[in-house]
């Protein structure tokens, strides 16, 4: 039984790591209706930039600030050369544009910083300690706190501030948003920068886990089902989704994998998400689609 709880806890903590990536997604989707597939590449780009700066002897915080500036520059470029030119296009077009973006960002990251694998040490201990017979690590607890804080801050931002309302308006109807004088350019810049920041945080935590390397961009595949269960438009949904996915996939791998063959973690979250959708077609906290005729 204690093994069960250990797996459960491990899963919940792993789920939080997924949430970190998912938050970046939700942010952009909620704010502009763009399903940003490039979030994974942004995570890679941020982590790679950071670690490369670090390796060039720059101090931690300076590297952090410089990376953040790089993310602002990236956001600016994306706004200027992609989003601005795709105003008022259907969501699917924007989605595909982000696919293109992910190619560009990955290519850029690799040509700037090379393709080697880099180790990253954040100075947070990842060694286990026993807690009531279960293993816990400081690192996981730290990651969980970071995710919690992010969710809190961002939720307040979206629901309580004027910018938040404007952002949701943009997501609904860009033409009308333009017509009422919302500055799309400015908002996009803000959102993509914040998403870049979230990407950086996720990139650092994941990078400390995996090493900073190309595979970081693949963590979006873990974030997708999280997003879908939580709902594309809900920040707190991404945490709940992360916990559900994390816990259930670990339990499934350990207890179900023994019967149907291991390695089911890749598809299990998607199947689970699919079942969830059959009950709630827009995820747990997702906004309902409005269809009036």
């Amino acid at each position, binding site marked *: 039984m204690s093994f069960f709880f250990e797996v459960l806890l491990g899963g919940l903590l792993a789920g939080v790591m997924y949430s970190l990536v998912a938050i970046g997604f939700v942010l952009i989707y909620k704010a502009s209706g763009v399903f940003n597939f490039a979030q994974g590449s942004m995570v890679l780009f941020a982590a790679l930039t950071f670690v490369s700066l670090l390796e060039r002897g720059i101090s931690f915080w300076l590297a952090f600030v410089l990376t953040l500036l790089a993310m602002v520059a990236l956001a600016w470029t994306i706004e200027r050369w992609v989003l601005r030119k795709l105003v008022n296009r259907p969501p699917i077009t924007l989605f595909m544009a982000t696919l293109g973006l992910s190619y560009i960002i990955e290519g850029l990251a690799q040509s700037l910083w090379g*393709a080697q694998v880099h180790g990253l040490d954040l100075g947070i201990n990842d060694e286990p300690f026993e807690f009531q017979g279960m293993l816990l690590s400081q690192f996981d607890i730290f990651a969980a706190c970071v995710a919690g804080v992010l969710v809190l801050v961002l939720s307040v931002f979206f629901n309580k501030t004027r910018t938040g309302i404007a952002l949701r308006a943009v997501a609904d109807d860009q033409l009308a948003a333009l017509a009422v004088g919302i500055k799309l350019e400015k908002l996009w810049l803000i959102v993509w920068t914040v998403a870049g920041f979230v990407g950086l945080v996720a990139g650092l935590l994941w990078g400390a886990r995996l090493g900073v390397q190309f595979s970081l961009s693949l963590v979006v595949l873990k974030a997708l089902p999280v997003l879908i269960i939580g709902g594309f438009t809900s920040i707190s949904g991404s945490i709940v989704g992360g916990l559900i996915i994390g816990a259930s996939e670990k339990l499934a791998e350990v207890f179900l994998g023994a019967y149907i063959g291991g390695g089911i973690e890749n598809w299990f979250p998607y199947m689970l998400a699919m079942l969830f959708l059959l009950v709630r077609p827009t995820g747990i906290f997702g906004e309902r689609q409005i269809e009036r005729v």
Partner: protein
Amino acid sequence: EGEQYFPLQSYRIGPYAAGGSGFFGGFIDYLQYVNLKDGGVNGVKLTWSECETEYVVEKGVECYERLKQGLNGAPAAATNPLSVGIAYATLDRSTADKLPLITINHGRTDSTDGSVFPYVFPLQLNPYSEVSAIINYIGTQSGGLEKLKGKKIVTLYHGSPYGKETNPILELLAKKYGFKLTLLEVPHPGNEQQSQWLNIRRLKPDWVILRGWGVMNPVALKTAQKTGFPADHIIGNIWSNSEDDAAPAGNAAKGFIAITTHPSGTDFQVLQDIKKYVVDAQKGNLEDPKRFGTVYYNLGVVNGILNVEAVRVAQNKYGKRPLTGEEVRWGFENIKLDDKRLAELGALGLVQPLTLSCADHEGGGAVRFQQWDGSQWHVISDWVQADRELLRPIIEKSSHQYAKEKGITPRDCAKES
């Protein structure tokens, strides 16, 4: 006179770039070294050109088709894709085109049987030999193979054909020696392994064999640490044995053991020479000079040594001129590296003694074990040989099945010289 051409299906970007850029860096540097030091092989200059595959099969095929004709009249000697997928996809083609396909340390196990696969060379070590050697090592560590009885061994493998290939052999060995084997799969790419390691924690095995690939390796080490499994009882296989696999795991990798067919480091004559002739002359292929002497780089050098040796052997028979693929193939089948020859090549201790033949396209089948000290590898064992007698019938069974499917009549190796 003339030039001998090496078509390089390299990969320097994408998820596996670290391996590709190291390997092809070493390979190219060795070829350069031969040109710079000796002016080629018996006066035949070596040339090459690269085509990026990104480790993607169809790009590899395109590269193969593009490069196989040779370059400016220089005929191609052999292809070295360093990718199981590309090797599979070009296997039929290279046989038809009579161009040797070198899959050093990897590839199709049954292609060891040269009578069915005349053009395919899994040099040094095929996957079966690899696990057999690992079990032999664990046996010696436990004080003899008979002590394996009752031991618990977990194999953590990458969820791909590559990862699974050795599972039947492990099961066979488990039966033979009486150890308890548990196979755990890590789905590709392997960036989350919490559940597998919690399982390991519950099973409390004596050893964990890591058949990883790419990001799966450092994550395995990190997660092992998190779940309290000691790194010095994890044994990495041939694709879990590079600096790029251990270093990103930081502290967690300290003590990690892995096999190797060729030690890393630079205290080998040939590497010193490469440094002198190539690297110090600013002609090195590596983007990051710090990677000189790393596992992948050295594997590239070893691969270069073997390819060039094949050309040299074949020249002895066919004359000192650029050779066709068919002729180079004969060279490969007649490579004979004993300690004396290895010393001449400056590769003593770097390359294992190797004798290839028509029937045996693997040749060596031995590995050494190395341990990570947090920043580099240290060799901790002598050559450990695989149980090749045990494996041969299995290999032949498989190759003959292939021959039947494809309607190939195996060569009679007794008649070959």
